[in-house]
């Protein structure tokens, strides 16, 4: 796994042992099976994640209480090669309703051979989330803001780091 970044984007990639189509299917249809559990913007517990498999579709979280949070728009849907979604989430992990302040994430599924697929990711236009970062500043002081994500992140990165 390698990571690098340009000015307003983050890029990373990973090679998985799976054919291209399977990789794309698990990525989209079974998103809940791999998405970091603590990274949802629902108030309550997550029941399921729904990925609408078409351009113009949405990705949304459904809470056990029935609440729904549509946090991404499907901008490009070209199975099994390419996927672009919007990132309608603020830096402090809340729903962004001002679409001018959303970024986008492109995923490319590139066959390495019959059994391996490289997934390339680019999360770009991060500057659109806005200068000033007032929202983040407010949120980072709250127990449910950045802190919680960072704590969960630290636990996971420690696990990942220990296995490297």
């Amino acid at each position, binding site marked *: 796994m390698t990571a*690098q*970044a340009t*000015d307003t984007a983050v890029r990373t990639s*990973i090679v998985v042992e*799976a054919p291209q189509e399977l990789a794309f299917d698990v990525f989209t249809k079974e998103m809940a099976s791999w998405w*970091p559990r603590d990274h949802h913007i629902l108030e309550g517990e997550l029941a399921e994640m729904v990925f609408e498999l078409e351009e113009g579709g949405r990705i949304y979280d459904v809470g056990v209480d029935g609440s729904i949070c549509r946090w991404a728009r499907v901008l490009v849907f070209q199975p099994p090669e390419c996927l672009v979604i919007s990132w309608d989430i603020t830096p402090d992990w809340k729903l962004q309703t001002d679409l001018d302040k959303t970024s986008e994430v492109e995923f490319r599924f590139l066959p390495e051979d019959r059994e391996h697929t490289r997934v390339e990711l680019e999360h770009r236009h991060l500057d659109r989330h806005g200068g000033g970062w007032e929202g983040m500043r407010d949120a980072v002081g709250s127990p449910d803001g950045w*802190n919680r994500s960072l704590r969960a992140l630290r636990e996971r*990165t420690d696990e990942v780091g220990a296995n490297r």
Partner: protein
Amino acid sequence: MTTYQLDGLSALGDGTRRAIFERLAAGPHSVGELAAQLPVSRPAVSQHLKVLKEAGLVGDRADGTRRVYHVNPEGVAALRAYLDRFWNQALAGFKEAVEQRPKEKK
């Protein structure tokens, strides 16, 4: 710019710097306050803050006779560092999930 950005991303790879960054994410702190909360000396905290500042993740300002540090709210560096870690974690989860699937198409 590349060197600067790689510094930004790798800056949070250190456990102590991550702990310092998390505390600053909760609110501004001085070197002394940070040292009191962490099992590291003041000079060590200062050194870590210098790295975080050079990476664009934190800023500082004078408050009377002391210097107070805060997460840099202006730059994209902090968000980028955060999302870089997030996506690497998410993709590692994806790799695990997809490789646990029975191989249907051999």
